């Protein structure tokens, strides 16, 4: 007996690594189910639209433009044009080949190339081919199968994607789900990726939590200058308690990792300065999402802080409030573009100049009061691999354990 057992065990031991290796390899198939609190689903959603509609140029993690649908570009001095060469063989979602008119894409050379490249990298300039019926056709790894505004988005894998079919068959994104409902769905295995509140981070296993870079700006946007308010707010308490030390308190619009100069905008609370600056101010109204517990708590805390400085803030419904508590995504790895998006979101013109000057000028209008830079926190099912806390989501890299490709 002893003589046959040992070889058997040896043979078995060889199988185990093979078996483990098999589990680690990406597999095709499956449906990724994502739930978010955001209420609107639109074609230009940052999280997934770039995986449906691609741009000629894309920014890498360092914020440098790299070729994407345009493989190269050159300057035609004679015609005064920037000429971009399209990538060949790129299939649209209906299987047809994307062919720009005249074979190349040209732009006047009045704009310097770096700025042009940044512009072309913006999602708003993605390639969309309109159809008579249904959503426009794109070239991304996923096609838009279903868009139910404010409710559901379903993306289906584009089998003919020029960079290789994604692993996932489908991505289902459910919008407007409260955190509690998302948690219940996750426990019942009805969702694979959900958002979590900062307070949940400590409670969960690290392997389940996905914490990205601070990519959201929580700020107060005002319809008129609100003197003294910024100095009255205790950002440290907001960060330490409400955010459970996730993200960072901030006095700047751009996070430190993006601009590198966030530290130049102080976050120290100065009640004397707040009282002096805000003396005689009339009561202001503040509007915020009362269904979102974290935002509600932040807004209520701001109201309390302001009252200590003699500033009266009253909650208001509707869109005509003096102040709005907003959550603005850091939409680009380019500081200028990100700053422009923030300014546009709060109806302010983008000042000219370098990043610091622009940001300083925006803050000096006293119509935007940055509070916190927060990361998006996700809880990810261990079966999901490849998830990274980036914006947009790396959907083409994600695969699911035990998934089976649909026929």
């Amino acid at each position, binding site marked *: 007996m002893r003589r046959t057992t040992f070889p058997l065990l040896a043979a078995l031991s060889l199988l185990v690594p093979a078996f483990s290796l098999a589990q680690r390899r990406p597999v095709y198939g499956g449906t990724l189910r994502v739930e978010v609190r955001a209420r609107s689903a639109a074609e230009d959603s940052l999280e997934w639209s770039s995986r449906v509609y691609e741009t000629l140029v894309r920014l890498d993690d360092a914020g440098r433009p790299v070729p994407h649908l345009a493989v190269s570009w050159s300057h035609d001095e004679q015609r005064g044009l920037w000429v971009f060469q399209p990538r060949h063989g790129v299939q649209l979602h209906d299987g047809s080949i994307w062919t720009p008119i005249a074979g190349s894409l040209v732009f006047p050379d009045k704009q310097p190339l770096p700025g042009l490249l940044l512009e072309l990298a913006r999602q708003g300039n993605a390639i969309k081919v309109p159809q008579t019926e249904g959503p426009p056709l794109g070239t991304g790894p996923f096609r838009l199968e279903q868009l139910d505004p404010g409710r559901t988005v379903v993306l289906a894998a584009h089998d003919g994607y020029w960079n290789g079919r994604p692993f996932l068959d489908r991505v289902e994104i459910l919008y407007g789900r409260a955190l509690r409902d998302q948690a219940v769905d996750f426990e019942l295995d009805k969702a694979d990726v959900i958002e979590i509140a900062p*307070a949940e981070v*400590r409670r969960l296993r690290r392997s389940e939590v996905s914490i990205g870079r601070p990519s959201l700006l929580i700020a107060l946007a005002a319809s008129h200058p609100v003197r003294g308010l910024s100095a009255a707010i205790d950002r440290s*308490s907001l960060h*330490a*308690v*409400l955010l*459970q*030390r996730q993200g960072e308190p901030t006095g700047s619009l751009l996070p430190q990792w993006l601009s590198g100069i966030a530290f130049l905008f102080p976050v120290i609370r100065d009640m004397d300065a707040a009282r002096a600056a805000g003396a005689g101010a009339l009561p202001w109204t503040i509007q915020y999402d009362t269904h979102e*517990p974290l935002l*509600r*708590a*932040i*807004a*209520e*805390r701001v*109201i*309390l802080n302001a009252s200590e400085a003699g500033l009266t803030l009253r*909650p208001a419904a509707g869109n005509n409030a003096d102040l709005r508590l907003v959550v603005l995504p850091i939409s680009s790895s380019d500081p200028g573009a990100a700053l422009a998006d923030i300014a546009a979101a709060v109806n302010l013109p983008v000042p000219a100049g370098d990043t610091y000057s622009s940001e300083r000028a925006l803050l000096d209008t006293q119509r935007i009061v940055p509070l916190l830079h927060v990361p998006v926190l996700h809880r990810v099912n261990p079966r999901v691999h490849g998830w990274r806390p980036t914006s947009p989501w790396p959907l083409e890299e994600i695969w699911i354990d035990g998934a089976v490709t649909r026929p």
Partner: protein
Amino acid sequence: MTFRTKLILVTSLTVTGAIALVTGAVSAGIRRTFESIDASRRAAVLERFREELAAQGEQVVRTAARIAAADAVQRLAVESNRAEPDFAPYVSEAQALAEAHGLDFLDLARMDGRIISSAHYMARFGYPHGWALGEGDAPGGGAFLTRIPAQIAPVLALGARHRATAGGGKGVEVLGGRRLDVSFLKALESAPGVRVLLWRAEGDVLNAHGTLENPTSLAPLIEDVRRTHKPGVRQVEWNGSAAKRESVYAQPLEKDGALLAVLLVATSLDDQVRLERSILYTGLGVGAVGILLGVLIGWWTTARVTHPVAELVRGARAVAAGDYEARVVALSTDELGELARAFNHMTAQLVAQRDRAVQAERVAAWRELARRLAHELKNPLFPLQITVENLRKAHQVRSADFDEILRESTSTLLVELANLKSITARFSDFAKMPAPRFESVELNELTRQTARLHAPTVDIKLDLLPEAIRLDADPEQLRRMLTNLILNARDAMPDGGELSIATGLNDGHARIRVSDTGQGLSTEECERLFTPYYTTKQHGTGLGLAIVQSVVSDHRGRISVASEPGRGTTFIIDLPLKGTS
């Protein structure tokens, strides 16, 4: 106003007054009874409030104790004993604990009072809790009323305080509360017609169904209580309708001298109002019936009283009019009957006295007549006697002048006999004045004719009514009457004067006025003027005015005289236009 009307009024007023008094007394009694019932109900509600408050307070106290013993709080207590405690991870603990234990409010706070986690106002972490600071709010004590800071405004609640300690003696405070709201009030209402309301310092008023929409009617009462911090009672009309009136009792709910809320117990006055109205309407109805009865009873009563009186009045008037045979029927044996019998007796006495007076007057008249007769007869008789004696004497003496004496004597005798004859004729005339023969007479024409007859002897001024005056009368007697008056007036003005005759109408009578400007008469003379044979003249039978009176009497008229010595005399005769033949 007649006696009957007065009596009816008095009876009716008496009945009405009695009913009004009874109605008022009954209403007052009912009001007092309802007030007493209200007070009992109110006391019951207040007692139930105290019991409910105590029961719920006990629950809150136990819940706070349970929460203090919960693992999460114990962990917090342990954390508080660290050198540098980090309470940030516990900011959401209170919400879960509050939900699990059914509390509306929960603050987990440090020993220094700063909030670690607030279930109802999450943003207040780090701030002092500020709602359990009174002497009665010590940890482990009983429940207390308080106003808990909330986002919009402080909220009235029942709070309790407990402490959780661990290890080194430090710990955390558990401050739990349950709001006093609609559900609390619902538990207090049990009796129909009783409502429990709660005014809160936020300015709203709750009832068992929610917020009262229009609490302005309560404003004066609330203001009183706020000012005095003492209970008060007022009647409140809702929506200005008397039908929706309530008696509202206000009990201030205070803590450490501050007014937190006012408990209002409203008892419906519907029943009382309805009952009072019913009593009022019944009173009015009974009053109306009473008045009617009063009128009827008064009518019947007064009839029994006033009828005999009226009979007496009628009898008295009849007697005054000369009907001495008028009698009053005495139907009862009471005072009125006695009065009637007394009247009849009086009338009989009057008749007897009148008869005696008449008899006496007759006797006097006969005496006067006898005197006058004697006086009148004496004058002619004396010459008769002298003449006969002279004649006898002359015969006796065989006087040569006997034939002359016989002639003279016979002449004298004839004259005096004629005089006697005249005297007797006048007496006979007066004694046998015929009954009047009535016919239609035009007075003005008759007066003119009579005046014309006497025109040669006296100047008569006529002042006759322009319209003809027709009356039923005996023209001959009227002429005689006028003649006597004219002669009388002429005799009263021996030195001349003015004699006037006027005719007119007076209340269904023809009026004749005969005036002179003669000597006039004294009052005594006026009284005796119409007595037969009474005269103020030196000569005459004194029958002229008696005849005038007789004529007037036969015509059922009236005669009166107005005179003043030295100014003249006026005779006024009223004769009915319609004859009484």
